[in-house]
């Protein structure tokens, strides 16, 4: 088993009555990607910022590396790279100058050119940061997080606000880092992001970890049910009798989903009823549950409203 890079014990941070982080524990192993998934206000940012040494925990412990260093130690600061949820830089420095400024703060660093290429900002190299778009600023923030070739990378919602192409590109960057054995902590509300990138996932809600494990672990934890989704064409509205089925949920418009352990029985019933009511089925799919389904099962709410 690989080395433990960070160990988090009974971490707690309250803001008045708000239990932003309420006694969480986890550890992070060398070279793994850990995704922290949760709705707004779940405590993701508070958690990572305590790990980054930006916020002081009310209780609990954070230890880095074999030496069990606190986040405030200089060694740790040399070895971590941080992308904050909202980034701002010196407004009148260009992209390249910003990278150079931050490179200068570390003992070791990656050439600015390489970083600019990594986040595809060659054409913005000389642009002042105040003139970058939100997504460009976000990409610059990721590049800045990598200037010191960090051993541990923190990415707080790195793809929020990115267009689909930029998002996919950033995923490539993260996968490349993973190949280089970097340890990465990533927060997100995109299940797809967690599903694609993470070795392990932590789901947070109201400051607590409500589930954790690999993607498979999490999905297995909801009893390995299957999900059948389908659309209905024809008579409007869809007759209530047609929809009278256990585990059925309305997705949107005329689309529905049914959670079940017995796919065959559900499909049989659907075809039988469509014939009876003279309705047409389309887009019938059978899929494994995803993280969203896990979250809904655990909390009764959707991850994103």
């Amino acid at each position, binding site marked *: 088993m690989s080395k433990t890079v960070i160990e988090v014990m009974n971490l707690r941070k309250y803001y008045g009555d708000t239990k932003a982080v309420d006694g969480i524990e986890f550890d992070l192993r060398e070279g793994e990607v850990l995704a922290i998934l949760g709705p707004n206000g779940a405590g993701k940012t508070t958690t990572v910022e305590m790990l980054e*040494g930006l916020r002081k925990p009310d209780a609990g412990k954070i230890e880095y590396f074999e030496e069990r260093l606190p986040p405030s130690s200089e060694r740790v600061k040399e070895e971590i790279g941080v992308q904050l949820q909202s980034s701002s830089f010196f407004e009148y420095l260009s992209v390249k100058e910003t990278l150079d400024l931050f490179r200068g703060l570390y003992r070791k660093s990656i050439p600015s050119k390489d970083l600019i290429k990594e986040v595809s900002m060659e054409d913005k190299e000389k642009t002042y940061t105040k003139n970058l778009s939100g997504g460009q600023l976000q990409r610059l923030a990721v590049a800045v997080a990598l200037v010191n070739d960090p051993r541990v990378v923190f990415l707080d919602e790195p793809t929020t606000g990115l267009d689909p192409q930029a998002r996919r590109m950033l995923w490539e960057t993260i996968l490349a880092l993973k190949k280089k054995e970097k340890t990465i902590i990533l927060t997100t509300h995109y299940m797809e992001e967690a599903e694609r990138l993470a070795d392990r996932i932590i789901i947070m809600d109201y400051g607590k970890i409500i589930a954790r494990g690999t993607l498979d672990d999490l999905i297995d934890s909801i009893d390995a049910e299957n999900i059948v989704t389908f659309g209905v064409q024809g008579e409007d509205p869809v007759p209530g009798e047609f929809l009278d089925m256990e585990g059925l949920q309305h997705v949107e418009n005329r689309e529905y989903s049914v959670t079940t352990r017995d796919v065959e029985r559900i499909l049989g019933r659907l075809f039988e009823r469509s014939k009876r009511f003279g309705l047409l089925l389309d887009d019938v799919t059978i899929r494994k549950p995803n993280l969203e389904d896990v979250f809904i099962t655990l909390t009764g709410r959707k991850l994103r409203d």
Partner: protein
Amino acid sequence: MSRLWNFTSGLFKSEIREFQVMFWSFIFPLILYFILTSVFGSFYESDTQGVSFRVGIVREENLAGFGKIIDEVIEGISSEGGPFVKKEYGSIDDALVDLREGRQDIVLVIPAGTNAKMTNALALTVGEVPLRVHYISGKESSTIASSIIEEVINEVNLEIERRGEGDFLDIVSETRVVSAIEEKPFDYKEYIFPGVALMMILSVALLNSPIGLIQYRVSGVNKKLYTTPLRSLEYFAGHFFKLIMTMLISLVLLYLMATFVYRVGGSIFDIRFILTLLFSMIVTISFGLMMASFSKKLSTVAVLGQSLYAIMMFLGGLYFPVFDLPWGIRWLVYALPTTYLVELSRRVMGYQFAPLSIGWLIAVPLIWTTFSLVVFAVNFKKVMGYE
């Protein structure tokens, strides 16, 4: 060290590229220098050619008899519309002190024995009656005043002759040169230079500096910096050097203008004068840091900065004398560090406006600096932290 330099130069670049900074720190002071010199420079110059000179009269004996003619002359020249304003002194020492410190342009002494000499001269129909004139050579108003007196005495002699009261009598003036304590010809362009220079320094120290610090905290730039190995001491050192660099550039521009446009003399290149400016930088930067440590919000620090900037500039006597203000606000004049700083620079140039010794001029700003830095050190987490 290279880490600090790299950080400082980054901060500096981002600072001076801002139009606000460019304008207020570099361009505005030059405009102000121009305006002040154009408006007040000629005003002060015409004043020296002056409507009236100040003459101190010292009577070692009161004039009587024929000697009264001298009184009449004195009354004549110091009457309304005359070239002199006179003040009578009881002792020569008092009069000379005022002359040295610039409160009189000349001192006219009527020596003991003048009456006797006048009478003698009348009786013997020949003789000199000496009057003494003390003036300061090299001080324009004093030199002019003394030649006017000379001229007046000649006129009186001619008049006596014409009236036929005796071609024998000759009132003469013995002139004595007195050296001034602070005296040198007053040059407005030079006088205002330390004022404008301090205003420049003040604008960087009280506006750019605290606003910059709070802005970096509010915007989150600081937060990102705290995740790096940069130490807080390095952060503030970088900030400090950035300010010094900005101030130096603006001072260089001001020096160029003073030298090549206004031909201000060597006094501004005196190393002691330059040291007073560096001293002012350190004092005002400390003050600005203290201000920043009081403010959580950008608007607070901006209002605080603007107000203190204006107060320190005007009540600190940067542009005009403030020691005649009513006591209701004069206490503020005495409380402000800028009062002492600008006076210190001017004292080094050879002017004296404030009734304060050099010791006070250095001690009060030092007390402010110490106090500011202590307050800042106690509060600085507020400036640095963001939680």
